[in-house]
């Protein structure tokens, strides 16, 4: 094997955006027929490096060798010609085109579509048999599940004869079953001699599937090791540059009385689709209830109804008193006054006003509080002082309250939102996706804060699509599927596999082949989505 040329070799790649050095003298060798992981925190430069490889950016310095040949990649066309295919984190698909149309787009054989479509149909059939990448060529992409859309992206690359495939955070949007399927596909591809570069921040994926792994930190490649010879702990340290606690240290919960009682909660959205179909649960003081589920199964709506952004029907009791679910007194402000804090799932759209300064953002939702008013005006000086104190306690970097929210990194933005909600001392805290797009160092901090709040006797409802996070934090886990709670589990008595089945809507004993059942139920769901 030593005499074969690497599929990809980068030598001394550097790239700066203004004063920010995104990639610093990066060298890497990826051997053909292997899966090479690139792991690093957000902003470590992984995506920039891959964008250079795919021709989106031009490196300031450095050389790219593809299969031993020095190659210039000025644009995506050149990357495709060199046999490099990329599956982006956010799919680059035309939603209302069929699978077939998406596959040929940009790789048509001539001015007329007919021959290209006919040829692609044949190639697709062959590819799907070869790699287990089955997908109906005539379905519009928007009717496909996320997992199937990802297959279309892979098919696109294979159709362009890519033998080097770059996947950017491919499992972020997948259910565990879909992720398993993806890894089986990647296994097949590797067996056929394709080279795969897998960019991820999930240590488990790196350990599961890669042959070698490179770690990036602050634009530099800190290490390249054989996966078999390393451990998640070592990789995490290499990523962050210091020792990291991968598991959250927490005592068993000491729950008290129910603070928030939800009974038969329903919600129908603007399109007339019933998103919540009778949700009931109790949330007790001093516990974290984790709501697991694939995105889009009603968790977001549940948070928004409880947080006062959406109307609902049913009964919600806060400390025994009913909360209005529609009409006056059911808005977000009223909920906050009543003692329900809310860290929304999408911090950039719902949690913060991005162009506004950090100090302004620390009072939104509480800006009517008499304590910060001075006559008809707001007491900006007081808010600023308080904001600076909050930012220090939550270790927001840089600790500058006058900086606009958009200028902070994802983790620090999240800390601003958390600081705002937690420091108001709510009885109930709703938290959606607390660490989405947040780097490991900040995750550790945010998790500790959430547990600290629990230990103060607060009731916490946690919604996350990251099963690892649900396991790490929850004292109880409820799984949502299609607007219902499918079941509740004790995190110490269940595993990813069981939750994965519940997340796919499978309850009880699932026949002889549970995975198959999952695939079927996903297909059914897809069918219904297509029918809408």
């Amino acid at each position: 094997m030593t005499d074969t040329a690497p599929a990809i070799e980068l030598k001394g790649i550097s790239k700066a955006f203004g004063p920010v050095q995104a990639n610093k003298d990066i060298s890497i060798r990826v051997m053909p027929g292997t899966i090479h992981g690139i792991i690093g925190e957000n902003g470590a430069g992984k995506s920039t490096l891959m964008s250079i490889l795919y021709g989106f950016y031009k490196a300031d310095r450095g050389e790219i060798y593809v299969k031993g040949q020095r190659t210039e990649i000025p644009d995506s066309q050149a990357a495709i010609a060199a046999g490099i295919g990329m599956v982006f984190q956010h799919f680059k698909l035309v939603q209302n085109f069929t699978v077939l149309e998406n596959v040929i787009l940009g790789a048509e054989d001539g001015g007329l579509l007919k021959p290209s479509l006919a040829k692609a149909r044949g190639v697709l059939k062959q590819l799907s048999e070869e790699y287990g990448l089955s997908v109906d060529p005539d379905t519009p992409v928007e009717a496909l599940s996320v997992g199937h859309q990802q297959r279309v992206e892979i098919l696109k690359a294979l159709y362009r004869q890519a033998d080097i495939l770059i996947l950017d955070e491919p499992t972020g949007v997948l259910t565990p079953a879909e992720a398993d399927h993806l890894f089986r596909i990647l296994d097949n591809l590797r067996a056929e001699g394709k080279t795969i570069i897998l960019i991820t921040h999930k240590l488990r994926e790196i350990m599961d599937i890669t042959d070698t792994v490179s770690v990036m930190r602050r634009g530099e490649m800190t290490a390249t090791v054989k996966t078999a010879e390393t451990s998640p702990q070592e990789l995490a340290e290499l990523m962050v540059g210091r020792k990291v606690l991968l598991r959250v240290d927490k005592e068993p919960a000491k729950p008290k009385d129910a603070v928030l009682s939800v009974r038969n909660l329903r919600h129908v959205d603007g399109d007339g689709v019933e998103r919540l179909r009778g949700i009931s649960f109790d949330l007790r003081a001093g516990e974290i209830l984790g709501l697991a589920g694939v995105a889009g199964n009603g968790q977001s709506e549940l948070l928004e109804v409880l947080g006062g952004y959406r109307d609902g029907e049913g009964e919600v009791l806060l400390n025994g008193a009913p909360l209005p679910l529609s009409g006056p007194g059911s808005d977000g402000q009223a909920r906050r006054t009543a003692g329900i804090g809310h860290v929304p799932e999408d911090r950039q759209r719902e949690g913060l006003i991005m162009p506004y300064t950090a100090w302004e953002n620390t009072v939104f939702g509480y800006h009517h509080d008499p304590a910060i008013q001075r006559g008809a005006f707001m007491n900006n000086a007081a808010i600023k002082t308080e904001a600076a104190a909050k930012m220090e306690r939550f270790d927001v970097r840089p600790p500058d309250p006058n900086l606009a929210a958009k200028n902070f990194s994802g983790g620090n933005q999240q800390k601003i939102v958390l600081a705002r909600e937690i420091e108001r001392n709510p009885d109930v805290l709703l938290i959606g996706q607390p660490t989405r797009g947040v780097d490991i160092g900040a995750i550790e901090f945010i998790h500790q804060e959430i547990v600290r709040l629990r230990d103060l006797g607060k009731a916490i409802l946690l919604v996350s699509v990251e099963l690892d996070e649900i396991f790490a934090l929850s004292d109880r886990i409820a799984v949502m599927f299609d607007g219902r709670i499918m079941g509740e589990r004790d995190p110490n008595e269940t595993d990813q596999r069981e939750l994965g089945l519940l997340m796919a809507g499978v309850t009880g004993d699932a026949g002889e082949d549970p995975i198959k059942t999952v695939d079927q139920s996903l297909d059914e769901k897809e069918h219904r989505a297509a029918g809408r």
Partner: protein
Amino acid sequence: MDFATLLQVLDSTVRLATPLLLACLAGLFSERSGVIDIGLEGKMLIAAFFSAAIAALTGSVWLGLLSGIVSAMLLSGLHGLASITFRGNQLISGVALNFLAAGLTVLIAQDWFSQGGRTPSLLEGGRWAALTLPLAETLRPVPILGPIYYELISGHSILVYVAFLCVPATWWILFRTRFGLRLRAVGEAPEAVDTAGVSVVALRYAAIAICGLLCGLAGSYLATGLQAGFVKDMTAGRGYIALAALIFAKWRPWYALWACLLFGLLQAVALRYQNIDLGGFTIPVQFMDALPYILTVVILAGFVGRAIPPRAGGQPYVKER
């Protein structure tokens, strides 16, 4: 209403629908590529002026047409520069071009012809002659079909036939060619086109060029086909009506044909029946004249079903990190 009257109304429907149809297809190309074009009006107007002016000066309707097309394409290019290259706001750029055209045409007309902002009335060679299709005279005596062929189908200027042929042509280009596939893709998901290694900018400029060409035809037809010369603001909101028709047609060529014929019919009826007497109650002429515009407002307000515009419409494409 007798058969002959009906034919006359339909005949004028066809002629009045022609500039709408050309403008509507122009907008279709532009908006399918993700560039919203509210400046159809201005492009038609400037094309109307230059085709009438050059036709008046040279006596050649063909030279008029050519200069109309060139002027509309130049405006299109400006719109492209503002909205594609410099990523400006497409609505503002379009509105600005409408103002520019409205002012510029009258100003130049006054300077060249000194007739109060209009061009001289065009004589024979400066206007499009009606084409008599083969056998029109021979078939005329045939009952029903004869008059339909003679009155309705034959006897229009060449631009009318071009406009109607543009419908299947547009459909074919959009749905059967590589260019069409890419054009539709760039209006829906420019990032997909970009990552496939195809230039978003080039595609959008191509779409805008076609848009200018079709607007040029529309404007030329207005000034040298439908009427005999340019008068101030002669497009009279047709660009906006075409935009409404485009939404009504859900950005599809065949629907666009029917939408434009509907608007044409309303205009034709308004022209023909100035005051409609409903036994003691008279619908005033102003109401009839306003009908196409009222329908425009109704459509633009979204009362007619839900139309899903191209997803990337109005957004300049910025490469993601």
